[in-house]
């Protein structure tokens, strides 16, 4: 790994840490959300510098979408909805400090103690293809199962969260047309 890559890696790592600390020290929900996003974007950059450009760029893509949607919910469920008022992200300080200290120590010990394998063979030119084969080749069944579990979870959560069912929309005999919806959609179901 060249000097440029090492410098980038160090810079992105420090930025990620600083934004991570800011998540717990800033006092506006919007700022907290976007400093968490900054930390995750730095992690995407680290992944790309480590030679996995596809995963790195996808992390940035997904985290931006996810954190922006998350901002909506974090602000909606926060005790002060405006989010511009002072607030604290710290709760149960002693317990949290103990848990996070132990986890950090365990992770660092893992990094230092694990017997990392040496590289065998040459580095592949296009790692995107290798990632695709690793996920969709031998692990195809796992990925398909995961996909269905995720989809079922999303549909189930939406059904549980929705007060109205099809009988509310279409009447007792399911024959009311057009459906009685609080917000009319664009297709006219």
């Amino acid at each position, binding site marked *: 790994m060249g000097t440029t890559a090492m410098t980038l890696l160090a810079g992105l790592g420090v930025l990620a840490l600083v934004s991570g600390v800011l998540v717990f020290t800033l006092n*506006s929900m919007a700022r907290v959300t976007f400093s968490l996003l900054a930390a995750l974007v730095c992690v995407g950059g680290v992944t790309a510098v480590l030679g996995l450009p596809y995963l790195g760029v996808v992390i940035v893509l997904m985290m*931006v979408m996810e954190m922006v949607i998350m901002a909506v919910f974090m602000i909606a469920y926060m005790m002060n909805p405006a989010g511009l008022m002072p607030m604290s992200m710290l709760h149960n300080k002693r317990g949290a400090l103990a848990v996070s200290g132990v986890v950090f120590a365990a992770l660092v010990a893992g990094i230092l103690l694990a017997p990392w394998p040496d590289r065998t063979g040459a580095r592949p030119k296009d790692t995107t293809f290798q990632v695709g084969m690793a996920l969709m080749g031998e692990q195809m069944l796992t990925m398909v199962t995961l996909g269905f579990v995720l989809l079922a979870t999303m549909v189930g959560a939406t059904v549980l969260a929705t007060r109205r069912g099809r009988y509310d929309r279409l009447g007792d005999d399911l024959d009311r047309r057009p459906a009685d919806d609080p917000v009319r959609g*664009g297709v006219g179901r």
Partner: protein
Amino acid sequence: MSEAGEWWTPLAAPGLLLVLAVLATTGNAVLDARSAGRPVTLATAVRPLLGVPRVLAAQPRRLPTPDVLLWRAGAVTVPVAAVLSTLVIPVGSHAAADLSVGVVWFNAMEVLTWAGLWLAGWGPDSVFSLIGGYRFLALGLAYELPLMFALISTATGAQSLRVNDIADAQHGLWYAVWMPVAFVVYLAGVLAFSFLGPFAYPAGRDLAGGVLAEASGVDRLLLQAGRWLWLASGAAMAVPLFLGGGAGPGLPGWVWSLVKTLLVLGLLVWVMRRVPVARADRYVEFAWVVLIPLTIAQTLVPALVVLAR
């Protein structure tokens, strides 16, 4: 063939993008004048450009409790992401940075607009701006997935995420011809991430300008410029993805790229003026019930063609 960019291409790409964006705004102003029955002169064409010094010289609007940091960050993100997205767009076969994951890079930069517009809506601490920011997210949840499937269709057809490979893989039969659904959905997506025309909902007139309601000075200029830069960038990306890139008889590749980009840009400006604004609650249902199944079926077509090859 993919060729590495010269040293000056990273500088040329933003310049070219700016020229295209200016052409689109002046063209729009000319069409405005024509439909209003005013005489079309050079003055009508440069009229939107006079807005630049005017907005810079205007006294900035002061608000009681803005979150200036986030507001600025949002206003800067939109045009900067548009410029960064052009790094992977080849003119002829020269791209500033011919990344092996170019399509994903373009998509990631486009998604940065979500963050930018939400922040631009949140920053001023004003109701109309905030609703504008939330409107863009609602629109984003509608247009993003069909747009992703449209991009995936082209990458599947070429079996590569490199934009130059996708342009080269078309061999005279453009993807726009045999993936028409993906092409149309992509063009709709371009209008959506530049929040213009039918997708001007986040900056709607019914909302006193939405995300633009409180923006003044450089912030306003950046957001407005971001819209047209994104329109130009989306038009330029349509050429390698769907229209065979720089391929064409006689002329050199970069000329063909520019000609096709201008045609797509003209088409987008024309459509943008013809179609009324779509409300997000209507477009979301249309996107999820009609467009997503259609684009998934569209992605299946190149997948089957590649398998049978």
